[in-house]
């Protein structure tokens, strides 16, 4: 596996771990900052997709729009376009819409379903095991 691919996968794993830790932690800040779990989860998906695009196509997306189109364009990733787009938009709404609220359940769903789907698609295409598991 190319070094740049591995770097993207490591960053994806770190961002996913941060998302999970935000969800599992006890917070004195109320409501708990679950919106940042969604943001970290989205950036995990970004690096998962970047890993796939680099390893399989030697392509580095220019920006979020370009990356999303790449997800739609490649058969390996197309099945998770809905999950990826949802993560992207939840992260957008979490950052920019002042009255948007992310519940614990919504954050868990984003990480355990949307992000997990993207991760599975990428790992399957790369012929790798799930992130964090022994090879």
């Amino acid at each position, binding site marked *: 596996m190319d070094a740049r691919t591995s770097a993207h996968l490591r960053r994806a794993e770190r961002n996913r771990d941060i998302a999970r830790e935000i969800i599992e932690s006890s917070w004195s800040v109320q409501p708990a900052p679950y919106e940042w779990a969604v943001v970290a989860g989205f950036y995990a998906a970004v690096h998962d997709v970047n890993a796939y695009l680099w390893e399989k196509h030697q392509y580095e997306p220019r920006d979020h729009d370009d990356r999303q*189109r790449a997800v739609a364009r490649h058969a390996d990733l197309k099945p998770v376009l809905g*999950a990826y787009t*949802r993560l992207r938009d939840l992260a957008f709404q979490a950052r920019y*819409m002042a009255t948007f609220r*992310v519940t614990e359940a919504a954050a868990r769903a984003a990480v355990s379903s949307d992000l997990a789907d993207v991760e599975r698609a990428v790992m399957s295409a790369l012929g790798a095991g799930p992130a964090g598991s022994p090879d």
Partner: protein
Amino acid sequence: MTIAHGLTLFEVGRTFAQAVRDEPAVKSLWASAHRDYFELWLVTAPVDADTERRLYGLIELLFEAFPDARIRLHVINREAFEDFELTSIVPRGAENYSAALVLDDGCADERSSAQG
């Protein structure tokens, strides 16, 4: 408004309206054009994550229809907002494509009155 390749907001809005017109959870659709991208705001009734995911996946139809355009889709699930107010979410100047859905839940009136 034309952005690139002669594509207009009307074409993008109408195409997506046709794609979601049979979705029971969809309440209204708004579209706005920016310097180099289009934005769609799909307002829904409270829906679960699976339904949201499916709606987001419909962006594929736009990517296929307009391969060179930058298009961003926002699914606005009322349930996820504290004090839901459409005018604080959809940008000023966005065009209402709800008529193309053959649906009207009062959002058009809400928007019109807020801007009027």
